[in-house]
């Protein structure tokens, strides 16, 4: 009896704490959506209006009228997708070479690649901006895409994965006459699918959310990526929070959709990048 009561109490405490935090973490999302659907007059209404009787999608059409939000989103989508695909291919190749091929200097190259992980982005920001300017890339996709591709982290993870694939699988393909490149594309790469999926999520999110580099490299209105677009929209529309919230909904929708569709891979990628780091 005593035990049952304390157990009930424990469950009650668990739910109270869990729900309080759920409100804290989900609240801003709900308030963002609620505000994006409201007319301006209800933005700071007291008491607050959660579900407006005057809800409409007007704010969204105004956002599209007042800023090239479609263009911002296309830019982000194009850049993030291209970087992700290129990074997955190049890092798989590099990781495979480091894990399964033997050639002189392999260990040295691996250590060299890993050591670039120590270099923080802010120390290379100025030279990178100057380099991109020198190449004539300011306000081009090249500036946003190419410097974002090389990343020791992805190489490292794919190397770790390729180290673990059984030798027999490779040998079988080689007896069938496959070349090393053939083994990579037909045996190793398909096996790496789960790792590639997790890394893809990681790269896509990192590039969709990127701010500092796009701010420096491409600030012409038609070349802005979505985070820079949101920032400048906020700057230009001061207190039009209903429009800013509508723009925020647009900017967060793709990653949120990705989040709910691929939660398993996202959590796997967090664990992968976190645990064994």
């Amino acid at each position, binding site marked *: 009896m005593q035990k049952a009561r304390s157990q009930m109490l424990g469950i009650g405490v668990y739910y109270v704490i869990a729900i309080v935090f759920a409100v804290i*973490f*989900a609240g801003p999302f709900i308030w963002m959506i609620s505000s994006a659907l409201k007319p301006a007059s209800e933005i700071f209404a007291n008491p607050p209006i959660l579900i407006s009787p005057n809800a409409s999608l007007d704010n969204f059409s105004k956002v599209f009228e007042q800023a090239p939000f479609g263009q911002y989103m296309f830019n982000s989508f194009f850049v993030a997708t291209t970087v992700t695909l290129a990074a997955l291919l190049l890092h798989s190749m590099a990781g495979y070479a480091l894990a399964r091929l*033997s050639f002189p200097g392999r260990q040295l190259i691996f250590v060299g*690649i890993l050591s670039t992980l120590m270099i923080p982005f802010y120390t290379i920001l100025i030279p990178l*901006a100057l380099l991109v300017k020198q190449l004539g890339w300011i306000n081009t996709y090249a500036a946003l895409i190419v410097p974002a591709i090389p990343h020791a982290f992805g190489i490292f993870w794919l190397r770790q994965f390729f180290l673990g694939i059984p030798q027999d699988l490779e040998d079988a393909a080689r007896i069938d006459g496959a070349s090393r490149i053939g083994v990579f594309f037909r045996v190793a790469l398909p096996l790496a699918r789960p790792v590639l999926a997790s890394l893809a999520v990681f790269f896509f999110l990192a590039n969709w959310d990127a*701010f500092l580099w796009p701010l420096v490299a491409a600030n012409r209105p038609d070349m802005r990526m979505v985070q820079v677009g*949101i920032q400048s929209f906020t700057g230009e529309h001061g207190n039009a929070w209903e429009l800013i919230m509508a723009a925020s909904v647009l900017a967060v929708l793709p990653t949120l959709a990705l989040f709910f569709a691929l939660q398993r891979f996202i959590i796997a990628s*967090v664990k992968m990048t976190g645990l064994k780091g």
Partner: protein
Amino acid sequence: MGWLDRLRKVNRDRLEQIVVGYLFLLPDVLGLLVFIVGPMLMSVYISLSNWKLVGQPHFIGLANYEAIIEDPLFGDSLGRTILYTIGYVPTVYCLSLGLAVLLTRRSRSSGFFRTIYFMPVAMSLVIAGVIWRYMLEPGHGLVDILLGSVGLPTPEWAGNVQSSMVSVMMVAIWKNAGYFMIILLAGIQDVPSDFIEAAQVDGANRWQAFRYIVMPLLKPISFFVIVILTIGSLQTFDQIYVMTRGGPAYSTYTLLMYIYEKAFREWDFGYSAAMSVALFAMVFILTLIQVRYFRSADERQ
């Protein structure tokens, strides 16, 4: 097959591995050299030169570094960055550990709450900053209305020198707690349940089992989380840029804000590069100290 044939085959394979190996590594290694290693060396060089937007850089030795040491704005920004780190790192660690413990037992509801807590990870720091700026509008924002309705005081949040730092910190805590919760949760769930059961058979209560069984086993992950949090917080930028631009009255002006503005508002590349190299050196040393500390703490056990 004769031994000569076999030798030829082995040799051909060795050659193939060398050629394919270098070929596969070439694009990435080239990319890292051109876009990371090269700029890093270049940054050190720029930091030793006087280089404004116009004209050529000319070598001035350590003059930029000497100027930094005497620059009160540098010292203040560094101080604020450290303050931010001291507030941010323990808060995120404790909060995400607490949430992980809360959700340790697998059940349908814990899966649901895990998804909710993790949701802000899907949002960029820029958007999080924008939304929170809106909710924290002094006087009439949602947070102030809610606090006011239960009679709690309402600071001016990002608009006030006293509370601006807490406001920008709160946003990053809100955004990142779920991420570290997932990492710590995975670590806790990796602890074999017989360990905990054995301890409980020996009379340990739940708190003792957590304190003496789970926490020690969680140490490598905790260490990793704290190092990552520290490195990240020393380069905080995005939400500050959209919420306060370093204001009001420089109260949220962190070192990275200063580095950014020096380079891309004042176009003083030499000085900005010197600050970035100095910050890098400090972070590097701090990380080494942390690694040392955790390692020696490990050995003592």
